[in-house]
């Protein structure tokens, strides 16, 4: 468990970091919390020649609300998300998800930006971001661009981030009144990747009609998956048991899990359906209480 030798860079500004990424090209990797990159380096699955540590760059870990949008800096730690009063107000889902990510030591280091930029469908935040309708700010030499979460994940470890760019911020629209959200994953033991994980956000009007639904699935598809048919089964209709079960059924049909030590394809589809059902109900409960 010893990484190959590499050059370590610790730029003090974003511009400097981007310049280093452009200078070293393919050979460089960005280090934020390090909980994906460093294990891969120690196992020698990844051997970057240059590691660009962005932790020394100021201003990348704020969590704030501006003009109906919640901005989360890419370096915000899992522990920051877990304990943020602002996030707790709109998004109790962050408490759900962070508590299921590894252990406190990891959460003190791991970042939201790193969790997304790694591009791994087994990570938990991608599904949450899908449910919440997030967008991602990517910064390069030519400035910032905003990418909707549905256009961010391309493939296994592949995202919209291009060479010379850094993921710098996550933006979440402040949800309308009557919104609730929830996440749960089935894991074999604490800290495990999800056998299946489900994130749901629902907005329910005063007439009981669902006006918006976001459902994201963890680790049951090669890329993080939006359960579109499940969302459609709910929106514009009252939240009946029948509709919930239909949404659950669609999710278990539309995901594409692969069999591994966590379970067979059948089991993962089955669990996905069960969790979609449970998370819809939990999100609805929170929506009613809001």
């Amino acid at each position, binding site marked *: *468990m010893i990484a*190959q030798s590499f050059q370590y860079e610790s730029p003090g500004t974003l511009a400097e970091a981007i310049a280093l990424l452009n200078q070293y090209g393919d050979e460089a990797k960005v280090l934020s919390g390090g909980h994906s990159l460093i294990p891969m380096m120690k196992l020698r699955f990844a051997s970057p020649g240059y590691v660009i540590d962005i932790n020394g760059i100021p201003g990348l870990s704020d969590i704030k609300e501006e003009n109906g949008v919640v901005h989360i800096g890419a370096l915000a730690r899992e522990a920051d998300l877990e304990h943020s009063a602002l996030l707790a107000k709109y998004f109790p889902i962050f408490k759900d998800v962070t508590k299921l990510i590894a252990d406190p030591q990891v959460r003190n280091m791991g970042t939201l930006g790193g969790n997304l930029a790694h591009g791994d469908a087994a990570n938990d935040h991608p599904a949450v971001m899908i449910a919440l309708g997030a967008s991602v700010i990517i910064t390069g030499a030519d400035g910032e661009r905003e990418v909707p979460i549905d256009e961010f994940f391309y493939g296994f470890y592949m995202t919209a981030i291009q060479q010379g760019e850094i993921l710098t911020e996550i933006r979440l629209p402040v949800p309308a009144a009557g919104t609730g959200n929830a996440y749960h994953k*089935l894991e074999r033991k604490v800290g495990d990747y999800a056998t299946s994980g489900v994130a749901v956000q629902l907005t329910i009007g005063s007439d009981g009609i669902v006006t918006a639904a976001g459902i994201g699935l963890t680790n049951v598809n090669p890329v993080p998956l939006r359960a579109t048919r499940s969302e459609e089964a709910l929106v514009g209709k009252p939240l009946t048991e029948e509709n919930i079960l239909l949404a659950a059924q669609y999710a278990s049909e539309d995901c594409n899990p692969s069999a591994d030590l966590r379970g*067979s394809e*059948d*089991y993962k589809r089955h669990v996905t359906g069960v969790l979609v059902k449970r998370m819809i109900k939990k999100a609805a409960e929170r929506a009613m209480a809001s």
Partner: protein
Amino acid sequence: MIQCKTSKAIGGMGHSLKRKEDARFIQGKGNYVDDVKLPGMLYMDIVRSPYAYAKIKKINIEEAMKVPGVVAVVTGRDLEKYNLHWMPTLMSDTQMVLPTDTVMYQSQEVAAVIATTKYAARDGREAVIVEYEPMKPVIDPFKSLDPSAPVLRSDKEGKTDNHIWNWKAGDKEKTDTLFETADVVVKEQMHIPRIHVASIETCGCVADYSKVNNHLTMYMTTQAPHAIRTVIALVAGHVGLTEEKVRVIAPDIGGGFGGKVPVYPGYVIAIAVSFLVGKPVKWIEDRSENLQADSFARDYHITAEMAGTKDGKILGTRFKILADHGYTDASANPSKFPTGMFSIATGSYDYGTTYMECDAVYTNKPPGGVAYRCSFRVTEAVHAIERITDRFAFEVGKDPADLRMQNFIKKEDFPWKSPTGWIYDSGDYHAGLQKAMDALNYDELRREQAEKRAKGELMGIGISTFTEIVGAGPSKDFDILGIKMFDSAEIRVHPTGKAIARFGTKSQGQGHETTYAQIIAEELGIPAENIAIEEGDTDTAPYGLGTYASRSTPTAGAAAAIAARKLRDKARKIAAYLLEVSEDDLEWEPGKFFVKGAPEKAKTIQEIVFAAYTNHPQGMEAGFEATHYYDPPNLTFPSGAYICVVDIDRETCEIKVRRFVAIDDCGNIINPMIVQGQVHGGLTQGIAPAMYEELIYDESGNILNGTFMDYLVPTAVESPSWETGHTVTPSPHHPIGAKGVGESPTVGAPPAIANAIVDALTPFGITHLDIPITPFKIFKALQEKGVFAS
């Protein structure tokens, strides 16, 4: 309640003394092998095989030698020049140190890289290029005896198949007849999975050979330093390393659990390299190496059968075992017991007929197996008997608690001779189970279960009432490589009445520095805090076979008590001299002798010891020291009654252990707090194989879960809130009536959990599931029963 004979200030048996060793451990000041740093020390890393079975065509070391800092690459051909490429296992099989032509399992050692830093050694390891010619491996033990299977150990002259040995116990004819005629016969095929001890500290060593003195100091993670020194001398005596030129030091150890009993190739290579270059060589495994290559535990495929009457009387048992030993039998059993103490599998029940048989086979997997927190295959035995007992209770329609009460050996029938010949020393099984049932209101739980079942909810209650067999062992039967399994204690009391005691055992977390001091405090009245305990250095400690199999208290603990009693006898003589009375006029209370009827005329143990150095009677040997080598007259037989309550999520199949009550009987208790800690740890290592852990190989012999990401060691989060208690049935033959406890919970917990889960699933016609029982495994079983769609 535990009655203490000594004051808290003396801190003898029964006091919950805080552990002396913890002051350094909780401050991070322990001294482990990896903390040993010597001038000029080199570092070793090991190239390992990616294949389970392959010919080595070529090992190219050129690139590795170019890595800055790399000083040597050692291969099997290099060791062959010194006849060090093979070594014996503890079971008198043979194991490669480094291969010369064939690798036999994935992650087997292939070459060693020696460098000036551990980083250079790892870079060098990555640069060694090995050309292999892969062959089709034998992975499934049931196929290893097929005539078409390749003969894996063709290195052994005349070997024509993969069979290692056959072992039998009991009476075959009588048992077969019983099973033909019995009213009720039940049978289940069960696998006790291959698991790993996964101690927090991996294995490692610093081999420090001095050419000037022709002397080797070996710092290593070993549970048995003396035995290791003898083995080194036997293996390397021909190159000059005879026993007086070898010193083995086992510093602090971060968990052993049996995995640090064997000699691993890395140790031998480090010694060989240090011997050749004359510099210290450090080798420390990383986690994956430890998990993938070091000895496994268990891996028994058992067909268990029970015969009895319709009203629930057990009449007999039959066990047929297939043991998968990997490519060599590297078990850590006493020599005469290839299946360890498996013959305890007749259990806690009063019947006279059994037959058991085991065939051991070679496969292309890592060698073993070690006794993982279990006295030599007792975990396998207890799982088999406790599962099949539940199966039998289900068959005859009896509550498993009632059926056990009906069949238990009665308290008054001890000592009791088992059908395989063991003499159970003592026990009170009825009291233990009753106490466990009372602790959780068993009848009420059964009522709740019936209600839940009616509503389609899944709740299960599982019982395990096990008999352990520990404290190996009496010299007439027990030896390892010929060395009898006694153990030793040496007590030296200083003139001011403080003491040091040394032992042939070696703590890996058991708390010997505290409990041994308490035993001596109990016998001599010297406060436990004034007694230093030392273990692990062969230059200073008396010879002993080490710590494993819950043997330390039964053997070395007994030695401590007897050595202390020798000193008390001497103290009586000195006291009589000092008080000018006859020895018969003296009475002992912990800490002093006083004159009968005149308690003011007394001499404290401290005054007596001081006199032993300053004013001892004419004709008496000066000083105050004693040594004892304790050869136990019998083994000890701890027991326990465990009850587990589970709830299973009907949709996700997740298992929640709601309650777990563990009532242990380990005889007299030395330190209740340490016993409770041992039980908590052991129970957690019991849920591990029951619900989480198994080493899994694919058909090519690739390990599928060779890291902690997929080898699921349970944590505090997975552990239920353990509810512990005890009954006390002292061992009649042990000097302090103690029996040993370290392994009981690991042995007893898995069947309680498995029985509870199966109990929850009986409405679906499920009578057995192999451990580890995971949510996915339950889903599959229910899918097979049509509960879930395919």
